[in-house]
């Protein structure tokens, strides 16, 4: 065709979100509010782990929760019933939270008044991995019934997570799950990932996870 010209663009597609996320992180550092972005498949145990975590360390730290639920308030109600402050973000079918939505949530809860805020991200292992929320740390939960092959199917999620919480270890007997295999597969793309094995049902192993949180917060503030 006549007259077609080539123009360099050279821009990151997600640069707006990345910049907004960085601004949030700067504010969180100024306020000394530690934020953990919690991601997993539906039902892996995000809400259960939040409740157990708050029960273990909520006496020492002021904890808040930002809930992303497609269209219900079920999880936010559960959290509030346990005496923990929570705000609900209606994602209305959105498959992930982005920095702008998280900003709304942080403002809604008054993040500067908290030591620790959890974001319960939308339940899936694909989309949330692509969008920086502005959280200080990314944590993912993989539950035993999901299988130890997930790093091969969702590599990006494993590569961007600072922590991997293996949940539902009380179900280990019922499943074909090898923790050493999972650890090795996760380390392939992310050798520095911290791994904890817990049961949010029985409470087993919770202290490894909460000790990690306490240490991170201490180093942060």
């Amino acid at each position, binding site marked *: 065709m006549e007259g077609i010209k080539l*123009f360099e*663009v050279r821009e990151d597609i997600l640069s707006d979100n990345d910049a907004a996320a960085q601004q949030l992180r700067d504010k969180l550092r100024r306020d000394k509010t530690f934020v953990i972005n919690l991601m997993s498949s539906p039902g892996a145990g995000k809400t259960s782990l939040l409740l157990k975590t708050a029960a273990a360390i909520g006496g020492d730290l002021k904890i808040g929760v930002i809930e992303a639920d497609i269209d219900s308030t079920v999880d936010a109600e559960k959290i509030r019933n346990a005496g923990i402050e929570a705000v609900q973000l209606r994602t209305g079918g959105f498959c992930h939270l982005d920095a702008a939505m998280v900003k709304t949530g942080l403002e809604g809860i008054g993040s500067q008044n908290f030591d620790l805020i959890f974001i319960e991200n939308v339940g899936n292992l694909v989309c949330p991995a692509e969008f920086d929320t502005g959280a200080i740390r990314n944590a993912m939960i993989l539950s035993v019934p999901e299988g130890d092959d997930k790093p091969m199917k969702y590599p*990006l999620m494993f590569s961007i997570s600072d922590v991997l919480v293996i949940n539902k270890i009380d179900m280990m007997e019922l499943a074909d799950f090898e923790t050493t295999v999972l650890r090795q*597969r996760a380390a392939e793309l992310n050798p520095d990932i911290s791994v904890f094995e817990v049961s949010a049902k029985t409470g087993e192993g919770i202290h490894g996870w909460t000790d990690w949180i306490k240490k991170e917060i201490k180093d942060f503030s």
Partner: protein
Amino acid sequence: MHELPVTESILNIVLKHAEKNRVSRVVSITLHIGELSDLEDRWLQHYFDYLSRQTLAGGAKLRIERLPIVLKCRNCDQTMHITRKDLGAIECPNCAGIGDFSLVSGRQYYIKDMEAV
């Protein structure tokens, strides 16, 4: 999935460059997407066609170039290109080390250039 917000972002950036360069129509857009990203080419184009309908970029073709996953062995500094199929059984070709690689690239989400008249 997240193709929709990604496409919105692509369109905004492209329109910004289209205005800056005073073009009358964008014909094609070249994207660099890392192998680790789970974007579906077909959906990207589909959403793009929809969102760009009444803009200078309406009808533009997305050319999606996939960039390989590149790892570096932290034991011996060897770099290696892998595909998603290799995941789960990666061994360093130089020192046979396993499970200790840093990710050099594979996460790109980048607009390289565009053709326009």
